[in-house]
């Protein structure tokens, strides 16, 4: 299994995923996947549809039970911990869908995100988060079910940030966003998070844009890790890009085999 060489340049890992295996009761969807994220890093997991990217995040976030392997957060074993315990340990998770509380207002969503903070800290943190995502300021009183796709996603991320997570798991945060918005989102918002020292583990369909904003990349195929290397390196591997990253479909720069292109089509 090819792995990358320059691990030495990376910070000490905060989140360590080691040989994690999980699935939905049948054969495992992800099989002995390992990777790690350090403070200030953005690690993007890329791969074709059905590779198990979301499953990996769910297993880490305690939503789905892992049947093998382990997850450690800051040296502490957290495999198969209940999600509320993980939140207390500083793990934030923004799922791909149902990432907000539909019937609650934006402010209430943020308050729920800060459920573990005391009352004064909640108010402070809301101000902090709104400074980070200023577009939400004028939406505070609106119910989440009435928000547009982008507004929803921002609310979801803002909600996760309320708990001041040391590790943030983002499952396809740009799904449903326009390409321009996706680029700004990944390039600015996510990057700003990492600049504050948060460790970000990201799953993205828009792989090129994501890898460009990331520090590290992991390629997942059929539930197994195929590559684990700096994001730039992964983004520039032409063969892999054509096959799995949807460059042909997204950018249309290089001619790809029709079959492969179809398979790499994003949802």
């Amino acid at each position, binding site marked *: 299994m090819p792995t990358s060489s320059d691990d030495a340049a990376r910070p000490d890992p905060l989140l360590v995923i080691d040989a994690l295996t999980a699935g939905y009761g049948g054969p495992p969807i992800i099989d002995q996947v390992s990777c790690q994220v350090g403070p200030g890093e953005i690690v993007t997991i890329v791969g074709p549809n059905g590779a198990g990217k979301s499953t990996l995040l769910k297993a880490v*976030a*305690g*939503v789905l039970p892992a049947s093998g392997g382990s997850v450690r957060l800051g040296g502490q074993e957290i495999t198969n911990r*209940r*999600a*509320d315990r*993980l*939140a*207390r340990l500083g793990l*934030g*998770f923004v*799922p791909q869908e*149902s*990432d*907000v*509380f*539909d*019937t*609650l207002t934006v402010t*209430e969503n943020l*308050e*729920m*995100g800060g*459920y*573990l903070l005391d009352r004064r800290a909640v108010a402070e943190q809301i101000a902090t988060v709104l400074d980070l995502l200023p577009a939400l300021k004028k939406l505070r009183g609106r119910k989440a*079910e009435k928000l547009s796709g982008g507004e929803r996603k921002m609310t979801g991320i803002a*909600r*996760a940030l309320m*708990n001041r997570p040391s590790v943030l798991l983002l499952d396809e945060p740009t799904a449903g966003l326009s390409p321009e918005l996706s680029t700004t989102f990944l390039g600015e918002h996510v990057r700003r998070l990492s600049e504050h020292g948060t460790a970000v583990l990201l799953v993205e369909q828009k792989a090129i844009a994501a890898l460009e904003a990331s520090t590290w990349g992991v390629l997942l195929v059929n539930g197994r890790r195929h590559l684990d290397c700096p994001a730039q390196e992964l983004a520039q591997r032409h063969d892999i890009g054509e096959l799995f990253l949807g460059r042909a479909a997204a950018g249309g720069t290089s001619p790809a085999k029709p079959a492969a292109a179809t398979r790499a089509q994003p949802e």
Partner: protein
Amino acid sequence: MSTLIASVGFGLVTASILALAAVGFTLQFGISNLLNLAYGDTMTAAAFAAYLANRAGADLWLMLLIGGAFGAVVSLALNRFVYTPFRRRKTSLFGMVIVSLSVAVIVQNLLLAGFGPSFFTYQIGQSRTLRAGSLALTVNQLLIIALAVAAMLALHLLLTRTRLGKAMRATSTNPSLALGCGINTTRVVGMAWLLSGFLCGVAGVVLVANTTAFQSTTGNDFLVLVVAAAMLGGVGKPYGAMLGALVLGLVTEIAAGIIAPGLKEGFAFALLVLVLLVRPQGLFGDATSRAVAA
């Protein structure tokens, strides 16, 4: 016209009792996605608890408190020891209906075994009748209306202003995300069952205080109306249940006054079926979550 005014007055009393019961019922559905058919029998059980307290000398206020507390404890226990374990076993939605129906039959017949097939009456004294034109309500009935309004307001404040209330709404909307926020959803769900059980118990005592005599089947007889009110408003929606209770309370009494008293519940149910045909999710429900086939 005077019949209409009188009917509206009566309807408000029925609506108040119904609202207390239906909101509790709907809270349970909202937080646990479960149509708890044992709800009516829990009401009866609470009414019996208050009856025993009454015989030991408790007045109406203390009885309401005791009935409420008893309903809360029974509901919490049912959720903890019956419904949640079955849920964990991934029992289907309809399987849960059968589970709750079985629990209902068990609770009702345990009450029958314990208290016998006789009728029971609270000793709470006769209350004065107040009149305004053709409107005539007793002090106790005005108290019932006031109690219902106060409970609805308190519930509204709880759900919108407190951390716990918001956590309940969050858990109800999106349980796994709530867990991800660090909310101990088990505890929040337990609190919701306590709260709804309290409303259930209070509704049981109030129902009996209003009908004056009751037996082991009284709550169960009332249940269908409660379910109808909750479904009319869109199950799981407290404000929907309040509206549903108001609509049913008024419709039953007005239909009774103008058409045929014996069929007042029939009208209520016909209305429910009609509404569900047009809006399967109820008046307040959201279109996506309830309806199955388009």
